[in-house]
């Protein structure tokens, strides 16, 4: 329910602003921080262009009248898939740790991260 309210809000905003899909330098910078990506000048311009095209495409979808249709979060008409609360995995540490670039004392080794 909450989602639909949000979507309707976004739709109204779309109608209001025409050029809103132009990606500003601040936006691409911010998206870069969130995605932990460092882009070169050329890559930034390309990304700005690509993202605008994606948003334009979504706008196209938004032209459809979806009033009265529940938002869909999953493509299969399936609900309630469960497992029972029974331990089925053993200790596979040795194999799993092989995926890590660096390990120490049975643990994954990462650059020091302190909050």
């Amino acid at each position, binding site marked *: 329910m909450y989602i639909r309210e949000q979507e309707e809000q976004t739709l109204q905003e779309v109608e209001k602003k025409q050029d809103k899909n132009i990606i500003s330098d601040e936006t691409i910078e911010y998206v870069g921080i*969130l995605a932990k990506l460092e882009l070169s000048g050329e890559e930034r311009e390309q990304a700005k262009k690509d993202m605008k095209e994606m948003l334009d495409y979504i706008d196209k979808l938004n032209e459809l009248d979806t009033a009265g249709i529940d938002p869909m979060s999953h493509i299969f008409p399936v*609900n309630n898939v469960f497992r029972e609360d029974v331990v089925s*995995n053993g200790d*596979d540490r040795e194999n799993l740790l092989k995926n890590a670039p660096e390990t120490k004392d049975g643990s994954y080794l990462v650059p020091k991260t302190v909050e």
Partner: protein
Amino acid sequence: MSREYETVIGLEVHVELATKTKIFCGCSTAFGGAPNTHTCPVCTGMPGSLPVLNRQVVEYAMAVGLAANCSINRYCRFDRKNYFYPDNPQNYQISQLYLPVCRDGSVEIETPAGKKTVGIHEIHMEEDAGKLIHDEWGDCSLVDYNRSGVPLIEIVSEPDMRSAEEVIAYLEKLRMMIQYLGASDCKLNEGSMRADVNLSVRRAGEEAFGTRTEMKNLNSFKAIARAIENEKNRQIDLLEEGKKVIQETRRWDDVKEYSYAMRSKEDAQDYRYFPEPDLVPLEISEEWIEAVKSRQPEFQPEKMQRYKKEYGLPDYDAQILTGSKYLADFFEAVTELCKKPKKVSNWLMGETMRLLKEQEMEPEDISFSPENLAKLIELTEEGSINGTVAKEVFEQIFAKDVDPVSYVEEQGLKTVNDAGELRNIILQVIKDNPRSVADYQNGKEKAIGFLVGQTMKAMKGKANPGMVNQILRELL
């Protein structure tokens, strides 16, 4: 100064559920395994692995929600919360934002001013993160994913609390309820119950809330009370100086007794939630809700009534014993063995509580067996040991769970009921204390107490005091 201000507090309480396996995979949730021995491709975020929901997690979440008077969302699902941190191998946490399992509940707490209702905004299900251990010397951290994917429920209260006392009362109420349900052991010191405190201050009488801060890393009731006091004063001081409170997350350092801001501005908190595509939604039927309801246990108020009726316990005993699920279960186990409810209650409320308090332990930390307390009660009841000796033996039971029958035997603590042996000792005491004997014979009733004491001392506490008294009076 601070009287002019009102403190407004809301809590986010995370509770680790007592399931055998993780929320989305069949790895064990057992506490304390060697690092990364309870992990698999799902809970270490390997590409291509897929989560499957543990049914028991939903059952526990519903049970807690029903106990907290929530309505259950008939249609609910999971969402992805995106963030980068090494304790989170998927780079997202599976949680619930838009359609949480429970909403709009309340719990009643006792405050010095009477009963008060604290609203529950929602309860949602999510997965826990791994644990980071920082290398003190090197420039690295070690990651253990044993805890990654352990099921949590987050209970979000309304901003209804106004003091540290109300917060503690609310947490104790939640803990008792959840322990009664068996949904978690709720140990703050082991992190199976964690509370984040959202706090703001406003001038008394004002309606709008002030800017709030969120405080983390609170792992005892004492730390919570101290942190609330500290943060309240910090915010009032800022406002008094004409400054503004900044909305931020702060980390409490209980040793240094102060908090500091955790995240810098560059680390934007933009979680970009979206519906979790790897999990199908949940449709909770009326029948399922009814089935969970029918399995709800006897909660404290009913248990208290039953204790009074079934065991004939006084109000006070029934209230204290049922105040902790562990204590209540222990009481029932011992009573089942020795059939002397009031004696059991006395031992639990007296010596047990005294020792727990002395060693800053909770009832769930009791490590002795119901059998040994039952045996001790039988030894006292049949007169094999007297009260003083019993307390000594109990301390051994409490500390090392010794078998009182063999302990009393080995240490030679059995009460001497042999009148002949006792008589000989008493004769000696009389001979050694002519003055007290004379005092008694001259009508000083109190002098006999001294003689009883001397006899007990000579017997190393093993005599039956009633018998000593009787023989003394005969001989004098």
